[in-house]
């Protein structure tokens, strides 16, 4: 399993890797800019389990996408990444680009929000999926094509032999997203990152794509990381949850535990902001006033304090993410439902 021989902790990593396919430990990302360093991600730790979905939830700018891009090594030279990200026992942080490129696609793959911008408009979708297959395995064109058709079938593209000959513009948004997932699956990755995969889709299609991901992770024993701003979606389609705010994880737990007893006021605010189908017309929504802090300025104390309804004296000190109940961590001095 482990190809890297450096360091004496290989054996321990390997035993942990049995349980988790991806272990992110104290990952931080900063970007150099004219106005000083921008700390986009601070001390983030995550675990991805094979066959399960980890949801990373937060507003734009919370650092959820940067975290995942740092793990995949997609950030480029302007970013400084520290900490650790271990995929199947291999450390990804600091890995040379040529080695990382081989891991991408084979061991980890990504599905983006807008499938149209990730597909080549001038190529038949079957050829694009076949090309993805040939990147990972030395197979002939004909074999790659039939593999592509099989992959399209596995993501439930109807009539895949015929649809493989379609161009991207002939497909609906949901079908294009299925094609992207088929390409991501072509190498049977250990972890699939899905960055807002359904945000651009209709409600009916959203549910279908998320159900498909649920199904695939079980069928292939693949870990899925679902990045979304919608806690409602995450609550229905994940096994574990990490809520991020201003570059930090502020609450994490198995999804059922977290949704059953939300502790962090920010998580509760995200939940309350979701429109409810049973609410009467013109009822006001609970919105989180203000905006997230500017990441280029230092944050003193809890980053959510200026917007928090439960803010108190202690919030001027940064609360650490700590296990308050078995498996349930939060970073808050005045958690909901807990007597201080």
């Amino acid at each position, binding site marked *: 399993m482990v190809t890297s021989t450096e360091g004496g902790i290989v054996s321990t990593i390997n035993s942990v890797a049995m349980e988790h396919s991806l272990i992110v430990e104290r990952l931080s990302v900063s970007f150099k800019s004219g106005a000083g360093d921008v700390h986009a991600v601070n001390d983030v730790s995550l675990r991805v389990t094979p066959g399960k979905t980890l949801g990373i939830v937060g*507003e*734009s*700018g919370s650092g959820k996408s940067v975290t995942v891009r740092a793990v995949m090594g997609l950030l480029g030279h302007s970013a400084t990444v520290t900490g650790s990200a271990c995929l199947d026992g291999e450390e990804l942080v600091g890995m040379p680009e040529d080695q990382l490129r081989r891991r991408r696609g084979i061991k980890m793959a990504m599905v983006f929000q807008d499938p149209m911008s990730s597909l080549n408009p001038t190529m038949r979708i079957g050829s694009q999926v076949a090309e993805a297959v040939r990147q990972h395995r030395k197979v002939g064109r004909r074999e790659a094509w039939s593999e592509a058709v099989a992959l399209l079938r596995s993501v*439930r*593209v*109807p009539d895949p032999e015929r649809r493989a000959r379609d161009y991207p513009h002939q497909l*609906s*948004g*949901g*079908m294009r997203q299925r094609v992207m997932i088929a390409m991501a699956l072509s190498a049977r990755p250990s972890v699939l990152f899905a960055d807002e995969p359904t*945000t651009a889709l*209709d*409600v*009916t*299609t*959203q*549910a*279908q794509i998320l*159900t498909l991901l649920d199904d695939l992770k079980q069928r292939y024993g693949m870990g899925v990381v679902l990045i979304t*701003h*919608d*806690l*409602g979606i995450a609550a*229905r389609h994940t096994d574990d949850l990490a809520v991020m705010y201003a570059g930090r994880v502020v609450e994490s737990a198995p999804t059922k535990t977290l949704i059953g007893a939300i502790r962090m006021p920010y998580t509760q*605010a*995200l939940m309350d*902001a*979701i*429109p*409810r*189908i049973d*609410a*009467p*017309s*013109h*009822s*006001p*929504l*609970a*919105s*989180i*006033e203000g*905006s997230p802090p500017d990441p280029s300025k230092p944050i003193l104390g809890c980053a959510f304090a200026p917007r928090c309804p439960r803010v108190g004296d202690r919030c001027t000190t940064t609360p650490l993410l700590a296990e308050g109940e078995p498996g349930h961590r939060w970073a808050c001095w005045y958690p909901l439902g807990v007597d201080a």
Partner: protein
Amino acid sequence: MSAVAQRPEVAAPLLELRGVSKEFHVPGHRTPLSAVSDVSFSVHDGETLGLVGESGCGKSTTARVIIQAPKPTRGQILLRGVDLASLRGSALRRARRQVQMVFQDPYSSLDPRWKVRDLVAEPLRVNRIGTRAEQVKRVDELLHLVGLNPKQYGDRRPRNLSGGQAQRVGIARALALSPSLVICDEAVSSLDVSIRAQILNLLEDLRTELGLTYLFIAHDLTVVKHVSDWVGVMYLGRLSEYGRSEAIYRSPAHPYTASLLAAVSEMPEADRPEVDEIPSPFNPPSGCRYRTRCPYAQAKCAEEVPELREVAENHRVACHFPLIAH
């Protein structure tokens, strides 16, 4: 003439569509694409009509033909009882000012080189409303109205705004000419949950404060529920259900509406294929356009186009076999 919501106590609705159709000729296709087919509805002062449906159902095209860009192929669009097609020159420009739009992507609808102040002033300048000093004052007023401090945001450019702030600028622009009707075309669809709640609350505050009327177009039924008094459901260019919001959400009469509601609540649906797609609008199914996806379709559905007819008071449906008895 197809059905129009009847409200005898109000003489002329603010906006009325009568049998509106829009066809596009697309190169490479012999038949025209029928984006909107025989759509009729009305919007009354101070009330919000939510128009829902999947992408490609014609809801955005409906919005565009209302502002006459492009003009409809058939049918009439009446603003306070006056047919827009009968207006020319300054009369048409005056009528158009009454109807303004807020778009989905605030960044792509705002010129990136312009400052916020100039973006909001543009409609005033183009329509030569007020002196320069009056325009400056009006821009400050508008920015305050949408919750942006003019001192802090007036000189920023769109790239220095968050998505929510950019959409506030889009709303300020739409309000600059004091319209009666604001068409929100997926105005909150690309925003984060938390920002979406802020913008929805802002739109509601503006409605009560300024007495606005909205045509609110969205694919998300939950969002539409929050803002609407009336709801129209579109499918492949046709209005499939129309009525009071509570009635439609409580007891949807069209199987399509029921399936949209089930998707939102993620209830398991019986008899539904796991993957289903909207048929091509170039070649829509005969009879009822929804029949190819409908679990209740029968022979009649392929033969006859169902008319929009009343199943209850203020509740109309275009279905041969509606889910509620009448």
